[in-house]
């Protein structure tokens, strides 16, 4: 399985060629996933190793980003709600901003920025040293051996990380609002529980899983198609990060709108 871009002359042609290759790469990966599961030859050790690796590089930075974010949410909402005479409204906002929006997005930034760049660098270096071709010659398909374990690992890590980010984000927002801004803890907690919904949590987890899939596929695709020596690997990482960020932001809007159309908003303050 090789993915060589056809020679194109125009930027538009190149963009379409890349998009088409990414789609066909996705389809081949799904087929490879089905094959490995059906024939029971999923590389469990690789899955575990990749999961551990991704979790160890993304967890701490995600939490370091989440705490300031919780503070920013509390700060902006607190000021607004206080002036509009809606104290305790902070809990309601945290319920859907941190849970449904911020936690999947932070996971996505970390998994595609930090995890994805490491995956892309690893696979890119193997590609330009022709290790991947050598494995294909020996009858070990790169998609089954490299891409499928990384895809599974990314999904597992993002879904678990999203929960952690939610807990820390809500905690930071609550702590800042009650301890620093001096709002009532009871009002915060009651509006938090009133406006929290299981559906919000479920869609956040679905989003996180989708972002994990996007990050893993883009990083593996760019890594396996890297060419041109050391600077080629660097360029592949650069393009993988940019492409994954854009796709994740677009997917976030699409999923949020689909969700809003399917599940109507609940309750009035």
């Amino acid at each position, binding site marked *: 399985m090789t993915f060589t871009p056809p020679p194109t002359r125009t*930027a*538009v042609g*190149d*963009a379409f060629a890349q*998009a088409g290759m990414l789609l066909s790469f996705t389809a081949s990966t799904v087929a490879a996933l089905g094959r490995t599961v059906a024939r029971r030859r999923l590389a469990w050790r690789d899955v575990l190793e990749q999961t551990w690796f991704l979790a160890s590089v993304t967890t701490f*930075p995600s939490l*370091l*980003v989440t705490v*300031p*974010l919780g*503070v*920013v949410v509390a*700060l*902006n909402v607190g*000021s*607004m709600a206080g*002036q*509009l005479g*809606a104290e305790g409204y902070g809990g*309601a*906002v945290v319920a*859907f*901003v941190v849970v449904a*929006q911020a936690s999947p997005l932070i996971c996505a*930034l970390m998994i595609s*920025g*930090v*995890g*994805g*760049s*490491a995956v*892309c*660098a690893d696979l*890119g*270096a193997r590609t*330009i040293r022709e290790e991947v071709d050598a494995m294909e010659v020996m009858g070990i398909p790169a998609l089954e051996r490299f891409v499928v374990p990384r895809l599974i690992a990314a999904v597992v890590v993002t879904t678990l990380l999203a929960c952690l980010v939610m807990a820390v984000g809500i905690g930071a927002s609550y702590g800042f609002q009650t301890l620093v801004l001096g709002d009532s803890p009871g009002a915060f907690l009651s509006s938090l529980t009133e*406006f929290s919904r299981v559906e919000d949590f479920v869609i956040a987890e679905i989003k996180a899983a989708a972002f994990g899939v996007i990050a893993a596929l883009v990083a593996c695709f760019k890594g396996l198609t890297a060419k041109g*020596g*050391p*600077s*080629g*690997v*660097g*360029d*592949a*990482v*650069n*393009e993988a*990060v*940019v*492409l994954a*960020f*854009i796709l994740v*932001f677009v997917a*976030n*809007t699409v999923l949020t*709108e689909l969700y*809003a159309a399917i599940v109507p*908003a609940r309750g009035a*303050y």
Partner: protein
Amino acid sequence: MLAPVLHLPARAARPVVDGFAGLGRHSTFYARVLAAVPTVLVRHWRHVLRHVNDISFGSASLLAGGGTIGVVFAMSAVASTQIGLEGYRGLDIIGLSPMTGLMSALVNTREIAPVVASVALAAKVGTGFTAQLGAMRISDEIDALETMAVPSVPFLVSTRMAAAVLAVVPLYLVGLFASYAATSLAVVQLKGQSSGTYDYYFQLLLTPADVGFSLLKAVIFAVIITLVHCGHGFHATGGPEGVGKAAGRALRTSIVTIAIVDVLLTLTIWGTQPTLPGVGA
């Protein structure tokens, strides 16, 4: 017999010492970069202009946004569409959905636009810097420069720093425009709010001072991004894979730093009890 035991404290302390050594090495690097910026503006201004062009338009494929200006525009627009939709939903539950315009004027200007544009800048320009400098480092081009008596830090890094600060102002203003346009479009077209109501609250809460502070935030973030990403690229080791790993580490460091500095700047500029301009009280 006693020797391995005596080595234990030294071994335990090694990560800490290494951490401090890395911190010191990067801080010295940052100081040298910043100190040389005035010199390169005079001596290497052609390179600075060339980097400004690379940063703004770049040579990336169209699929990856086609240059930084496209990436910043796209990410700001998509993120601010969310602000419009979520802000409408949030204000709707307290019956204040006509005031969604204030979300755009306040949250976009103060937080979302600077942070999102900077994350886009870090992803596109920052990892590009790491990739370029890292490739030069591992193919010994930086050592070659030093051998030819060209001071490598000013020539390679300070020129990029000057170019990034020059380029970020128009880039950020494009991003801010995209944010305002996307939020307005989302609220007026998708949610069906009257555009007059939206514009009234938007203009009531948008002050020139806030836009200035927002631009200041973006410039500070651009300086941080350039320092962090160039530092990781300049000190890259470990072959092609090392360059890619350095790009990932740089991105992690810059995103975390941006998040923390953002809160500190928000607290410094607007205080712990920010007030809404124009709403009274």
